[in-house]
Each structure stands twice: as C-alpha cells, then as structure tokens.
C-alpha cells in the first residue's frame, strides 16, 4: 500500500487512548423499536471495545440490510451499511486490502443466512480475520415480519399464514460445516456473558462467528425467553467453558454426560452421576463442537451457550500478504517500465 501506507504513517502515532463505552457511541439517534434486543448488543459491544486496546479509527463495522444491520450507524468507528447479504464479502475486501484494520460484521438471520449464506460460509472456510455477529431473532424484522431461515418449522408469519414448512438452519452447524475456526453463541439478555463472548471473538485470529439470540419484541416476541428469562433459563441453558464439566440447572444440579455421541442429562444429586462423569468442554475438539451444535435440535437437551469451538488455522489475508512480500523479495518491487518492455519486443527505426 504505497500511498495509503504513507498517509497512515504520516499520522503521528497517538498515545494509547483510554476509552470508555461512551467513546464508541456515535452521534446518530438509535432507531430500533423500544425494547428491541439490539440495544443490548450495541451496549455490550460498546462496553467491550475499550478493553481491546485498539484505537477506534482502526475499527470498521460492516453490515448488510435489516434492523440488525443498522448497527454500524451507532458505533463511533468507521462504518459501512451495505446491501442485503453482502457484508461478509465487502468485509473480506476491506480486510484483504487493509489487514491492519479490525473488521467486524453485523448481520441478521435473514441477511447472513438467507441471501448472504454463501458469502458467510466462504468467509468461514477462508478463515479471513473477521468478527461476525449474527443477530438471530428468527424473523425478518425490517421488512415487518416474514419468517427467516432460522424460524422454527410451522411458524405463522405474514408470509406463512398457514405455517412455514421449511426446516430451519442451525447457525452453529452451518458455520461448523463450513469449518469456521471460532464458533460461539450468546444471549441478548445476558450482558456479562455477551461481553465475554464478544471479547473472545475479537481476540480470535481468523473468522469468528457469533450467534446472538436476540429478541424482536415486535414481530417475534419471546422467541428465546426459555433461554433468557430467569424462570426457565437455568434449566434450559448450559454455559460451556473450556476445561470445565458441563453443569447446569438452578442449583447446578444437573449435568451432561455422553451416551455414545449423544449428550444425556444426568442428575448430580440423585446419586446416579457425579461431576466426574460429565463432558468436559474442549474448544479445540472438532467433534465435540458438532455434538454441541447438534444439541440445539434436540428439545430434551439444554442449549449450549458460550464458545463452542476455537482453533487456529492459517488466515487468508495473512497468506495473501505473505505471497506479496515474498514476490517482492524475490523479484523486487514491480517496475512498470520493465513490465511493459519485458519479453519479446522489437524496434522500428
């Protein structure tokens, strides 16, 4: 990056700033419906940003179209609200051209998994260093309430008055099938957990895919209340942590034990099982990640929430840059005069 690099270098290196969450609030009015889960996601992201130690002018948020995709307007960073479904592809271009930037993608279940599904899975397989936040509200919010590829079978919406007949995607499974190197899930109504997961995603090198259960209180109210509300949450969610056994329940009285490849709920109090029998989470275990992802399709099991998978593998943008550097090392910086005149030429006097 000749010229751009120069311009960037010319900026006197700023002393590291101590940010607060407020520094990440833009001057734009936030225009989601009152009560929308998107507010919490915004707040948590703004809270996590200061902890990353990265100047905000080095951050770019890219989004597609949807309520969720309004996200970049509200972040006091560089922001790019693009077209429906294309955020991962645009972000890929940004990141390849500018590996020095931290690039985030904000997308919805429609934006990311319906029209944008292909770009999403290709980003995952390439393992380009993007942090993808998928706001899953199991509905199309912005277009006022059609079902989405994550809506449950039988869902009655504006476009499916007789109930939908599509089997939904499991976003964790889709991203794992595409070999994402970081896959996680968190909840709009659990600020602390969300902060933790977002921070982990930010720190991961390579594509980070984060599914966030997000309540659309206007068109799909309560879709995730089982997993987010006090009364039911403890019994229906298992918070997974690397190296820890999978315990859950109001009184930490239940656990998950493997029966073949399938987790089974066991009681830790009736004497049939102890903590030592439980699955111990291992973020690096590919097969375990599939088992965890699959659990979302099995209603008798709690929903796993947390970092499901996190491994290192080569990053696309780094490989691209390395090829460039090694070409320059081998051949020297490109010389246009030489290029035009190389090979077979002849001279007319």
């Amino acid at each position, binding site marked *: 990056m*000749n010229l751009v690099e120069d311009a960037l270098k010319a900026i006197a290196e700023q002393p590291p700033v101590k940010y607060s969450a407020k520094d990440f609030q833009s001057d734009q009015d936030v225009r989601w419906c009152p009560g929308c889960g998107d507010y919490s996601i915004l707040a948590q992201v703004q809270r996590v940003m200061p902890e990353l130690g990265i100047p905000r*002018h080095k951050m770019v948020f890219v989004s597609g179209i949807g309520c969720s995709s309004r996200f970049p307007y509200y972040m006091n960073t560089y922001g790019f609200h693009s*077209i429906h479904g294309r955020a991962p592809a645009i972000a890929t271009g940004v990141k390849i*051209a500018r590996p020095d930037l931290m690039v985030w993608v904000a997308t919805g279940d429609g934006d990311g998994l319906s029209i944008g599904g292909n770009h999403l899975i290709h980003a995952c397989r390439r393992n380009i260093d993007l942090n993808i936040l998928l706001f899953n509200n199991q509905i199309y919010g912005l277009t006022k309430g059609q079902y989405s590829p994550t809506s449950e079978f039988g869902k009655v919406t504006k476009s499916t008055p007789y109930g939908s007949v599509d089997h939904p995607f499991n976003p964790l499974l889709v991203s794992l099938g595409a070999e994402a190197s970081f896959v996680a899930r968190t909840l709009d109504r659990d600020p602390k957990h969300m902060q933790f997961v977002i921070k982990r995603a930010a720190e991961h090198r390579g594509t980070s895919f984060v599914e966030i259960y997000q309540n659309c209180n206007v068109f799909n109210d309560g879709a995730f209340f089982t997993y987010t509300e006090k009364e039911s949450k403890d019994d229906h969610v298992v918070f997974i942590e690397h190296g820890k056994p999978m315990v859950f329940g109001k009184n930490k009285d239940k656990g998950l034990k493997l029966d073949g490849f399938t987790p089974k709920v066991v009681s830790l109090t009736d004497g049939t099982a102890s903590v030592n029998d439980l699955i111990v989470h291992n973020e690096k275990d590919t097969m375990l990640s599939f088992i965890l992802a699959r659990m979302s399709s099995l209603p008798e099991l709690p929903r796993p929430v947390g970092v499901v998978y996190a491994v290192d593998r080569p990053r696309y943008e780094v490989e691209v840059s390395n090829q460039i550097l090694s070409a320059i090392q081998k051949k020297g910086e490109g010389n246009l005069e030489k290029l035009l005149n190389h090979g077979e030429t002849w001279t007319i006097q």
Partner: protein
Amino acid sequence: MTKELKNLDDVTIRFAGDSGDGMQLTGMQFTSTTALLGNDLSTLPDYPAEIRAPAGTLFGVSGFQIHFGSTEINTPGDICDVLVAMNPAALKVNLRSLSDGGIIIANRDGFNDKNLKLAGYASNPLDDESLSKYHLHSVDITKLTQNALSDMGLSNKLVDRCKNFFALGMMYWMYTRPLEPTIKWFQEKFAKNPELIDANTRVLKAGYAFGETTEIFAARYEVKPASLKPGRYRSITGNEAAAWGLIAGSVKSGLDLFLGTYPITPASDILHELSKHKNFRVKTFQAEDEIAGITSSIGASYGGAIGVTTTSGPGMALKSEAMGLAVILEVPLVIVNVQRGGPSTGLPTKTEQADLSQAIFGRNGESPIPVVAATTPADCFFGAFEAMRIAIKYMTPVIFLSDGYLANGAEPWLIPPVSSLPDIAPKFATDPNEFFPYSRDEKTLARPWAIPGIPGLEHRIGGLEKEHITGNVSYDPENHEFMVRMRQAKVDRIADDIPPAEVDGDPNGDVLVVGWGGTYGAIRSAVEAKRREGKSVSHLQIKYLNPLQKNLGAILANYRHVLVPELNLGQLSRILRSEYLIPTIQLNKIQGLPFKSSEIEEKIDEILSREYAHELS
C-alpha cells in the same frame, strides 16, 4: 530452380487444424517473426467452444488468423489469402473465409478416411474437383515431417507434434521470412530438452526447404515493412493490455490494486495476468461469485486500495445491484466487462457489443456510471488506465467495455514511455477538522476519500440516501432530488475532462460512420477504402460512451447521413437518436463475429447510391 518473387501490400493467412495440432503456437510464431520484419499486423485466434474436442471433428477445429502488410493494418482480415488446413474438418470449417483463387495448403496425410468421414466429406476434396476455384497444394506434411526426423528415434506422438512447424517453414519460405527468430524461440522454450530443439528446428527447416525445392509452388512473395512510427514494439492482446493498463493506473496513482473477480470467458485472462504480478502489490481475490467479486472490490476501495472487478455479460448482470451501491457510496471502482455473445449464456466464446445498454442503464434508480470503451487490443491498455483515472479523480465506479474480439486479438504496440502516462492523484481526507464525507470538490464534485485508519475521520456510509455534506441517512424529499441530480452532474462533468471527439476524414460531407469500441479497425479500413475511391465518407469512433463528448452533437450535424455499425441491434444508435434527435442509419450484425470491412463498405455504397438517398428523403 529460381522462383518468381512478387510484392504484396498485405496478406491474410489462416492456420487451421485440430485443437491438438498446435495452430495457436504456429500462428504466434509467424506473428512474432512478421512483427520483427516491421510489418504492421493484426491477429485473431479462433478456439473451439469445447475444452478438448475429439480429434478430427468439425467443432474441434482451432484456427489462428494473421493479417500483415506494408500498409496500415486494422483488422485480422475479412477474407484469407492462404488457408493452411491440417485435416478435412479444418478445411470444411474455414473454406468460407478463403478468397476465391486463394491458396490452400492441405496436409494430405490428415485427409484419411476416418477424418474425411468425421468432417462429413463423401469424397476427398483434395482429389475431386470441388476445390477447383482455389490454388490447392496438397502436401504430405506428416510424412515429410517423419522423414525429417526418421533418424532421431522419437516416439510417433512426438514426431506428430512437430508437423505444424513444417507448415510454418513452408509459409516462411513462401513469404520470405527468416527462420532464426523461431529457432531462437525453440532454444529458449525447450532449453531443458535439447532433443526437441533439434527436432523442431529440423522440421522447420525441412518445410522451408520443401518450399524452395518443390515444383508445386510457383511463386513466393515479399511484403515490405510498413512505415510504422519508430520505437520499441511488442505484440499484445486486449486482455494483457487491460491488465497492464490497470497495473499502470495503480503505479501512477500510488494505490494498491485489488482485483475481486470470478472467472468467466473471455475475461478470465485478465485475472490470470494480474495474478502473476504480486510484486506490484496486486492482490487478486478469486471470489465465490461475481457479487462477491464486486462487493469485495468495493470493500477494498473503501479501505483505500483501487478496487477492480472483471467479468463478462452474465456476470455483469449479477453485479448490477452492487454497482448501484458503488454509485450511491461514491467510491472509486473499475468494472471491466469483456463482452461476449448474449443474451444469457449465449455464445460464450464469441464476440458482441450488446452490453452497452446494460452498462449505461442496467441498475435500479437513477444510477449514472461513466462508461469507456477500447478500440483495439492495444488500446485496452489506455481504456483501462483511463477508467482508473476517472474512477479515482471523480470517486465513482467506471465501466470499461472490451469485447471478446479485442480480448483475444493481438497487434503490435508501440510501448509508451511510463513518463508519458499522466499521474493520478487520489484526494484523501486527512484533516478531522471540518471533515464531511459528502462535501465536494468544487471542480470535480468528487467527495473526499476518507479511508479507515485516520483518527477523527470515523464516519458511516451506506446504501440509503444520504444528506448532502454530512452523509447522514436522510429521507428528506428535496435532499433526495438534490443528491440524485448531484450524482448525475458529477458524471456529466467528466465531459469537461476528456478529449473532444475527432473525425478521421473531412469535417463534413455525405456520410459519417460512427462506431464505438472494437469495431474501430473494420470501420477504419472500410472508410479508408471508400475515401481512396474519392467518396465523401468520414469516421468517428467513440471511446467515451457516458458521458458523451461535448462536441459530438455538433460533429454529427455536419453530415448528410450518419451510419452506425454495431455488433448489436442498435444500442449506440438509440443513444445518439435520443441525445441529438438525428436520424441514424443502422448496420447491425449479431453473429458472434466482428464486422468485415467489406460489410461496412457495402452499406456505405448503398447509402451513397441514388436510390437509397431517394428513399430517405
């Protein structure tokens, strides 16, 4: 035996054979040697649509045509003087492009029963009277090649692979070309395999000697050097030239080149070429589809690189939505469309000019994009460079239109000194004080390019309508109208920054032939021919399709008739009519083939004939 040596102004030769017969290599060698002799020339390969068609079939024929001369050469030639046919299929497919009285050099050994049958010949045309209107020379090329190599102990397969150079040797003799350049090429190409150097050299010389000694050729020909501008030349195809023009734009603007693209015929070679030049910091990204190709390029431009995307018709259609995004964002972007036969998948390996309307109008909303086109293979260098200049200076996507004919065609190119290319100066925003993402340069109306990474310039852009100056989302009615007209005005204003249209010929008269893009050579030849006949005919080739050049309307008004030849159903014609309210006469060809100059000449004659003038009045 001394043979007659005749002088010719120009000659067109077509080498034709099976895909596996090496006709492209043969043609390229003849081209190199001819270029070194100082002839002007133009070439066109003609590949089969199939990757590797079965030997001997009609659809598997591969051809290479070269037109060279001591005069200015503008096209690969309407009609051939010589056809080298390695098998019956090659003869059958190409005979219709041979002039009456033209020379056929046929490889008799290739005309065996199997091949004759595959080509659908009931009897051997070399032996019946069907070719009597041509000068037929049937030569046992295969056998003569075998003879030349008999003592080397090579495999049959290898021997067979040399036979094209026997044909080349004959042609070198016939047109008095030296063997050395090709022999030198053998030495470089087969440096690791001296046996092959030896074999190919022997065969080439054998072909030459055969011409010299055999009785069958009565005459040989000389084609004197053309009076080309002095300087250093190279041969270049349209796709190479486009790739290099893009690199030149990157070098001259100091911006890294990012190509986000998806392979498609006939545009893929630009990707192939650019991917070789990583030491120019060129990043090529083979995306999952055309949409990711263009959107990743938009992302790269947003990041401060110069984003480029290359494609052909169907891919262009897929990029429509994202082009609109680039328009409303106002980011620099170069979109290269190497046009091919349509609609839909159409004729993927053939040429056409039918994407002009799509380039100008093919997006939702009022979405103006500048469009430039190249006129010859080498001109693709300047077309691509110019597209980049405009894109960066005006912060706008620009469409560069090439076509299959230009892309694969080659011509000698007088290599420009790098210093002769204008510098391109991107205007980056750097000062956070008074920074507004949609403020504008007074002259160009361009907005500042505020790339991520600059403290204090944090801002947000997107596909929704934005407020003048601030760039904030705005639903305000008057602002929308203002911005729609502003984006249009910015594109219109480019007309002040491009050279005026120039006419070849008289500034007024009976007929002005107006073409655009790749029809340049055919029109130029036709108009030159008519002018030599004393006809009042001029030529104007449009390279700037949007905006049009400012003097264009005034020029058109100076002629009684405006003839618009296009490889489509009249797309430029429609634009000229609506823009200038002048009647146009159309000449349309939609055959996947370039114009022959004779077709244009005929049309000019028709217009000039009294009856037609009468009809019009």
